[in-house]
């Protein structure tokens, strides 16, 4: 299947919709129960909860697992953050006889990038359904005004399905999605040595402070390394617009460069990056594994972002 359209939606659209299935994630973050709480009583179809195989001993994580077990009658299925294979097994059980057109709700607020990329790959590769509409919902996080410790990059890998084109010797163009850590992209530059560097930030973001923080933290990469001398603004609150803008940025370089997107900022722009790579298979989307001094516990602002991805045969 291919991505037919990306649309922005409202929480009320979700509340009024009937879904065939719904996927949540259970982790240590408080945000992982924010969306389920907002959707109590809605017609979500078959519910499935995936739980991270690590950090299960954290108090918050135990409470969240208990929440899903008690409130949704669905204990989490454990899954490694690096391997979405159980998700494939789950999706393969959906009968195409019963559902020629699928409606799926996916809460990616606390999901690993590999998990929702796995789901997207399944939508891309399956041919048993005439159409699939996937509503993505994301609880926007609140970050405090404080120093964010640098992340030490451990490894760089492609996202499955987003490997890009095998290089024929073309120069490399890297497009960074910037977050609050300025050192991560800089260390990647040393390693990747691209010919062209572009960058984008979530703007408008969750707040003016978020935008200013991202620009400040990444001032060096924007001023000294970005080919265009600026960071592109992709709105956090509109996946359709971000997807479109990012496709345009990438398209400028596709003909003459091997292009790789490396999203290191907020999840919705990570989703936009993956969708661009799935739509333009010669464009790679990479993810970065790294180390931080401690788990970041991010609280919900209360705002949610809802987007619909329409897959068609």
């Amino acid at each position, binding site marked *: 299947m291919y991505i037919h359209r990306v649309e922005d939606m409202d929480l009320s659209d979700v509340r009024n919709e009937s879904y065939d299935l719904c996927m949540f994630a259970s982790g240590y973050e408080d945000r992982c129960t924010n969306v389920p709480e907002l959707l109590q009583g809605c017609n979500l179809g078959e519910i499935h909860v995936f739980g991270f195989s690590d950090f299960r001993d954290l108090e918050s994580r135990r409470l969240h697992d208990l929440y899903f077990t008690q409130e949704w009658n669905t204990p989490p299925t454990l899954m490694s953050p690096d391997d979405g294979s159980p998700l494939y097994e789950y999706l393969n059980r959906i009968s195409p006889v019963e559902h020629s057109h699928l409606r799926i709700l996916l809460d990616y607020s606390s999901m690993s990038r590999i998990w929702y990329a796995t789901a997207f790959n*399944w939508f891309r590769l399956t041919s048993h359904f005439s159409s699939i509409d996937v509503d993505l919902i994301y609880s926007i996080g609140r970050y405090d005004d404080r120093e964010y410790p640098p992340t030490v990059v451990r490894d760089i890998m492609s996202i499955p399905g987003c490997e890009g084109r095998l290089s024929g010797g073309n120069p490399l163009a890297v497009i960074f999605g910037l977050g609050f850590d300025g050192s991560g992209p800089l260390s990647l530059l040393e390693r990747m040595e691209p010919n062209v560097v572009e960058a984008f930030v979530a703007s408008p973001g969750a707040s003016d402070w978020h935008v200013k923080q991202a620009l400040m933290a990444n001032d060096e990469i924007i001023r000294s390394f970005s080919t265009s001398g600026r960071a592109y603004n992709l709105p956090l609150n509109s996946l359709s617009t971000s997807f479109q803008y990012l496709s345009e940025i990438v398209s400028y370089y596709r003909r003459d460069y091997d292009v790789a997107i490396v999203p290191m900022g907020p999840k919705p722009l990570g989703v936009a990056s993956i969708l661009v790579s799935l739509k333009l298979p010669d464009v790679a989307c990479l993810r970065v594994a790294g180390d931080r001094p*401690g788990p970041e516990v991010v609280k919900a602002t209360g705002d949610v972002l809802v987007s619909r991805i329409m897959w068609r045969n």
Partner: protein
Amino acid sequence: MQPNQRIQFRRDLFEIETAKNMSRDEVVSTFVATSTYWRLLSAKNHIILGARGSGKTVLAKMLSHDHLSRFTSEPRAVAAIRSRSFIGIYVATMVPWVGVLKSKPWQSEPEQERFFQWRLNISCCIAFLSTLRSCLEAYISDIGERTKMERRLSSELAASWLLEDLSISSLPELEHALQELDRLRLIDMEIRRAMPSVAADRMVVGVAFDVEALAPLRWAIRIVSGPLELPETCTWLLCLDEAEWLDPLHHRILNTFLRSASDHLLFKITTTPYHHYTLETNTNDPIAVGHDFEYVYIDRDPVSSDGESADVDNMQFANQLFAKRYARRPGVRRRVSMNQLLGESELLDAGRVDWKPGSRMRELLRIYGSRETVARADRLDHSSSQFSDQLGRKLHGALLLKDGVAQLRGREELTLYSGASTVVRCSDANPRRLVQLFNRLLQEAPETRGRGGKQGRSPGRPVARPLIRPVIQTRVLTTFSQNTLMRIQGEPVVGRELYAMMQAIGGFMRDYLHHRPLSTDQVSSVEIDKDIDPHIWSLVKAAVGLGLLYPNVSARNPDQMPEREGRFHLAYALAPYFRLLPRRGRARKLSTMLEDSGQRDSTNIAQQTALFELDEVEEE
């Protein structure tokens, strides 16, 4: 296709510090061929070791046919091309390429091996097409004949690689077909993982490349050898760049090639020191250094054990590098040499210095020298040549530096890190550092060109005035030195710990020089032995890979890297930041330096930099 070959306007090549970002013509026109290069252009397997920025990629690219064939200023290169004795293929293992290999943690080891071999096969064949294009241009002058040959060979290669259904008649079409094949293969792999029941009915994609590693490349070589009239003695060189990003499992597979290499297909593999991870192969026998392959260590010590000749070589190299890039600089109205730009070095160009009793230098020795050193100076007064050999050369720069630092007041700045030989020394003869330094210095070059002949600061020595003032040069070198150190923190995995260790080493050396009476024993190296903590040893290896520490290799065996014991000198690039003299001195135990700074063993370092593993870097 290399679109950057289409660059029509001149770029300032001092702003481009990595060969990856240069067009073929830019690489060729600025290449300085050294004895190492000619050593590599030979029928041997080589593993090329060099710190980041040491020029490995340039060497590998210049071995490739499309670069070598354009190196027309060098008779040996012209002869190699004309005689068809060497045909090089350049294959880069860039981050996205390696990232695909690492993105499948569910694969078993045999599956990982098979996937690596498949991808290596198809990547080498794509790279082969670039080389073939270059061969056609070099060996078939008539355009009509060349086009016919391209059509014929494209078709035969396509048949060999089981792509004949696609009616391919040109190299670009063939390249595109291979890229498409790779894409379909990845989709096929994902379908087999995602939907095993569907996969049972699917045909395997790209079976022609699902064979023994490099077999498709060997078939291709056989197909083209006759039509291109390649002699029996023709040697193909597969130049695999940046193997340090691969895993030990991949190195084992590459080692198997080295072991079984024929005379007609040999390998040049570049990696950083200590990042040739294993000698094991996929058979029972490991590869043997000196028999199956040779290491070639390309980092050049600006001050080797034979002293002057290394300096002369490096100055020559730097001069040529500067001249070639400067000649291509846009808007240049007149030629400027590196020496005109930077002048002489107070610190390193000792020249004719007055050491007589009562002279300024003697006074500095009296103020800063140890009692023993002062006494020794008095004893050597009778022979100026002995004085110069035993004391003068060793103390001159150190005394000026101690005095310069001690005399700094308020906003005063040092001027001593200046002069061509100091700049070249502080680059560690690393081409990337040299280019970076030249770039920064040229940005400070004045609009109007000055004239030479003004007296310098060192007593009794006339110094031609450089175009960039010493205080500016010092400022540039010090900032560069500081940035080199700061950037360590961002290195993947080891950054923070490595930074702490380098601070400890540099700090020890700085204190030794500036807070003790001066003798001819200046500390510029660390010594390690077999008792070294394994984690500290891993940091030392990382430092060598990044060009922060350099092994004191023996002149008799310069390609042999010390293993868990030996001496390593601090990069001269860090000398300005730590206010050190950029020259070889004595060694002290690394454990002593770390203990001195409170970082006795890896436990302390690890505790200070304890990190929490995160599977992906993104804001949540």
